[in-house]
């Protein structure tokens, strides 16, 4: 029989903590979103550019104004020297000791020198000094105007940078909405595919696009191959059904036509067994191929269980608390109950107790209990635990588990402390059946009441063994929310 990979398990955890926020605001409030990363990147880049340009401008303006100040000081010195020579005025004669140290050293060393003196930052001076006839002539000009205009320039550049940031960062955040929207669409499509919508496509792929186009195209082609694969499995299942049922139908009808006799009874009994086996196998095959769909409606659980036992000709002690009504698919519920109780009779021991609660159905027998392997790995096809556990073909529990998945229920297998096997079916809480139709809706996992000590394993959505212990009913679960 074809097996289906675990393809419908949804993962939407990332968005869970944002559930309480109104939908429209959600993307804005997620500080880890690409939008804010892009905005931060743009802000950093703009700051870096502004800083580089600012430094460059600041530096070249400083150079130029220092050069101009020096020129002015030298012009003034030349004028003072000429004045001194012509008139002998002592106005510019300055004792070396009164000059700033750096200038004095220059004059001593080379006979002349200039100095930008900003020892008082508010009133900077540009000095020029030279030695004339053994005397030191020195002049200084005010460099404050240049300083102040440079400061004003710096201030303007800072303001302009801030203004540019104030415009660019929101713009970047807004512009990031475009790729964000495309990414969200890809994610949403992937989620719908995961929830079982095999026709969901991004339709955003195409030649010559960016990386988002590429991932969209990849998601689409993945969905295509997934759909083709599921389709071919479903087709295969249907074809197998046809091939098996056609001769079986002839056999069933022919066996009915046989004259009554002991051999006839034997033949009819074997035909019944063969028919049940074929139907079980086809049912598993359909479950695997995802061809089963739940048809929920309000079901009175106690009555449904009692009728189910009647139909299957099984006896059990039925105890009911209250008058529980659940929104579920009665035909699938019937399959689950009949298989669980049938299994309890075949492999367990009488009496079989069936307890029905609000959303909970427990089937308990008084036999040797479930084998350790079943508790550890879930039901396995054609595995009945031990060779002496004759009868049956080990498909019943697999079917019960698969059908539980289809109706979004949890099925747990455990052993009671005082012996006997215990299978507990937890139906989804009222209203969850409908809510679960939409993908992305999380339901808190039910099943706090697993109670049994020992090896209780939650079989929710665990595909018939394979080691998955806690999974979620993939089809109806939709919303992820793993335990």
């Amino acid at each position, binding site marked *: 029989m074809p097996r289906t990979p675990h393809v419908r398990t949804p993962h939407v955890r990332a968005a869970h903590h944002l559930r309480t926020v109104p939908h429209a605001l959600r993307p804005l409030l997620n500080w880890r979103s690409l939008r804010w990363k892009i905005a931060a990147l743009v802000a950093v880049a703009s700051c870096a550019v502004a800083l580089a340009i600012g430094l460059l401008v600041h530096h070249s303006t400083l150079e130029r104004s220092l050069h101009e100040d020096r020129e002015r000081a030298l012009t003034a010195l030349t004028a003072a020297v000429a004045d001194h020579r012509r008139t002998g005025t002592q106005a510019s004669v300055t004792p070396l000791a009164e000059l700033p140290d750096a200038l004095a050293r220059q004059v001593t060393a080379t006979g002349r020198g200039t100095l930008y003196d900003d020892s008082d930052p508010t009133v900077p001076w540009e000095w020029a000094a030279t030695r004339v006839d053994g005397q030191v002539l020195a002049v200084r000009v005010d460099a404050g105007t240049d300083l102040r205009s440079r400061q004003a320039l710096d201030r303007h550049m800072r303001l302009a940078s801030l203004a540019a940031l104030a415009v660019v960062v929101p713009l970047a955040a807004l512009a990031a909405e475009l790729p964000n929207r495309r990414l969200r669409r890809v994610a949403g499509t992937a989620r719908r595919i995961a929830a079982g919508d095999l026709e969901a496509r991004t339709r955003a792929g195409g030649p010559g696009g960016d990386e988002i186009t590429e991932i969209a195209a990849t998601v689409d082609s993945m969905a295509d191959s997934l759909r083709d694969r599921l389709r071919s499995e*479903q087709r295969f*299942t*249907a*074809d197998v*059904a*046809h091939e098996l*049922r*056609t*001769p*079986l*139908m*002839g*056999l*069933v*009808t*022919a066996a*009915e*036509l046989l004259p009554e006799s002991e051999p006839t009874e034997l033949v009819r009994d074997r035909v019944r067994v063969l*028919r049940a086996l074929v139907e079980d196998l086809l049912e598993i095959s359909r479950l695997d191929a995802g*061809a089963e769909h739940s*048809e929920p*409606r309000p079901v009175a659980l106690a009555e449904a269980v009692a*009728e189910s036992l009647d139909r299957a000709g099984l006896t059990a002690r039925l105890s009911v608390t209250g008058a529980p009504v659940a929104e579920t698919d*009665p*035909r699938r519920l*019937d399959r689950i109950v009949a298989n669980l109780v049938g299994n309890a009779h075949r492999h367990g021991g009488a009496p079989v107790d069936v307890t029905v609660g609000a959303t909970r159905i427990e089937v308990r027998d008084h036999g040797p209990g479930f084998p350790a392997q079943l508790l550890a790995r879930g039901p396995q096809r054609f595995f009945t635990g031990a060779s002496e556990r004759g009868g049956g073909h080990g498909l019943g529990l697999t079917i019960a588990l698969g059908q539980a998945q289809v109706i979004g229920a949890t099925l747990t297998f455990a052993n009671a402390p005082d012996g006997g096997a215990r299978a507990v079916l937890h139906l989804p809480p009222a209203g969850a059946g*409908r809510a679960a139709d939409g993908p992305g809706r999380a339901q808190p996992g039910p099943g706090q009441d697993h109670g049994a000590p020992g090896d209780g394993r939650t079989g929710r959505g665990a595909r018939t063994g394979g080691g998955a212990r806690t999974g979620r009913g993939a089809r109806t679960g939709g919303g992820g929310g793993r335990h």
Partner: protein
Amino acid sequence: MPGENPPAPVSLLLVEDDEVIRRTVAMALERYGYRVSVAADGLTGLELFRELKPDLLLLDVMLPHLDGIGLCRRIRESALEPILMMSARGDALDVVSGLEAGADDYVVKPVDTSVLVARIRSLLRRATFAPQAERGRADTGRAAGNGAGQGTLGPYAPPPDSDRLVFGDLTVDTAGLDVFRAGTRVALTPTELRLLLEFAAHPGVVLDRQTLLRNVWDYGWDGDSRVVDLCVQRLRRKIGAERIETVRGFGYKLRR
């Protein structure tokens, strides 16, 4: 049980390509007193249907030459006899297309003879309950010209008021079991008529699929709601889509 012979043998036409099924089912049904004719492929089936005018058709879906769905559609162009499909695949493709093509019900193989007979009886009950089927057949020639089973069957003769239910342009004569839309007789299959009468008995009341399956198709708990959905679809095509309203999640209701 064998021996319960109906007074006048009911004639069935079984179209089935698997020889063993064809022979065993025919034998089994004959034990129940039905007169069974058989055909091994769709085209032969169509010819036999026209020639023998059976009371009910049992069609396999997968048939050579003309498949069960195509055959069903061809027959429904001119006739209203109950059709029971037998599908071995049992998947939506078979079931839905069969019902869309005009089948009244379906069974999935393998089926016990007792179950098959129960389905056949339910269909025949609807057919005898609805004498319109007889008239539909009598007027086959004329209805065929109109196609899609929406034949105009004779002039409109207003029934007495007491038996007339009027819903907009739709008039249901509950005594004569006739249905008229805007003065024109509407040709309904027995199942469609039975369904419409069920609605007409509870105008404005939402009827859920389970109730309809129980009252119209005689299903216990295990009916397939698609049978209802598709029959409602066919009925809507004939009496006007707006007449039957879908109440999402609950069922259908007839608009007064």
